[in-house]
């Protein structure tokens, strides 16, 4: 390496280093990030509490074959439309199942939705923790974290979950839903947090069927707790020991 080459190299390195230092200095001198707590929730703002456990009681003897009031109400409240894909690709958060007992021929009709288990398999298998159970027992999907792997759909014993197959534009502002994420019945958490009951329950009682009852399972004085304590009710697939929050009478 000759003398002139060496000094040329040094000059080059020096110039670049100076430029880089100037750039870094500029960035460092710009105002830094501050941790602002202005818009945080005020202390004491109500949130979900584990003192409450929301649940539903469905009396299948009052559930009419062919009636889909609950399904329609859910679709209206959560702005779920069939979409442009195949029927199998439409989201269904609640569905009516018509059952026929094979040995006796007895027929039953009942609505099936996310059972809001105490020990949800969908929460166990979600790799990012997007599927979670809120403190008050409502099982939800955090669509900020959901990567759309659909493992929870494989794991759900009740086939309660749906995958959004295409872009949505007509969402209800209170119910964000979008392409590529998995979703299921939220027990109308946007209504429950306001003190109302889920849309399906309201529709059923407005329609005078009163097959669906919503309430706090942990409160011994609530109507649902009293009914469960006195009349027989069962959970679907109870042998899996998931302790669903939705119970059925008359199966």
């Amino acid at each position, binding site marked *: 390496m000759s003398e002139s*080459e060496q000094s*040329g190299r040094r*000059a*080059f390195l020096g*110039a*670049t280093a100076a*430029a880089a230092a100037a750039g870094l200095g500029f960035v460092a001198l710009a*105002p830094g*990030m*501050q941790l*602002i707590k*202005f*818009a*945080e*929730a*005020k202390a004491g*703002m*109500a*949130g*979900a509490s584990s003192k409450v456990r929301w649940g539903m009681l469905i009396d299948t003897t009052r559930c009419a074959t062919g009636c889909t*009031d609950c399904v*329609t*109400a859910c679709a*209206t*409240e*959560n*702005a779920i439309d069939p979409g442009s894909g195949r029927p199998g690709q439409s989201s269904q958060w609640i569905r009516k199942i018509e059952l026929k007992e094979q040995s006796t021929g007895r027929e039953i009709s009942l609505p099936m939705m996310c059972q809001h288990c105490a020990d949800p398999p969908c929460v166990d298998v979600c790799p990012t923790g997007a599927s*979670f159970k*809120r*403190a*008050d027992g409502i099982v*939800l999907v*955090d*669509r*900020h974290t959901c990567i759309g792997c659909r493992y929870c759909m494989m794991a759900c014993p009740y086939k309660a979950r749906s995958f959004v197959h295409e*872009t*949505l534009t*007509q*969402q*209800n*502002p*209170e119910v*964000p*839903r*979008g*392409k*590529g*994420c998995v979703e299921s019945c939220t027990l109308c*958490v946007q209504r429950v*947090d306001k003190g109302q009951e889920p*849309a399906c329950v*309201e*529709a059923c009682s*407005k*329609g005078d069927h009163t097959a669906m009852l919503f309430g706090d399972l942990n409160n011994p004085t609530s109507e649902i707790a009293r009914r469960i304590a006195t009349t027989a009710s069962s959970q679907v697939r109870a042998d899996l020991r998931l302790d669903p929050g939705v119970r059925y009478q008359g199966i």
Partner: protein
Amino acid sequence: MKPLLATLPARAKQYLFIALLCLAAPVSIAGVPKPVLTIENPGECVAPPEVIRRTHMDLLQHQRDKTLREGQRGARISLNACINCHASKSTGSVLGSNENFCQGCHAYVAVKLDCFECHQPRTGIAKATGVKP
């Protein structure tokens, strides 16, 4: 086939590199016009503009967990409150043109908005109340 640059003397290559570096700066600064936003409801936001401009992404990320996972709700913590206040009066949305509140700045800094894949950017959508009459 020797590349053209290989034929230049060493010092010329060094100066060319520094010159290009210096040229890049003014070109990027003078390029795109700054966004012109319409503030529909002037008044107090949840934080001063200089602060919220830099930290709204952290606030949103923090608050969304509070609402979704902990169930905390309220005007100062709700994304819908932001949208209702900032939505353009003409289009009713925070998206749609570069004068709109969210889209204007985000188009300028070329940061993709992920929020509105799921959240409704328009106001005035009739909130469903249950059974269709």
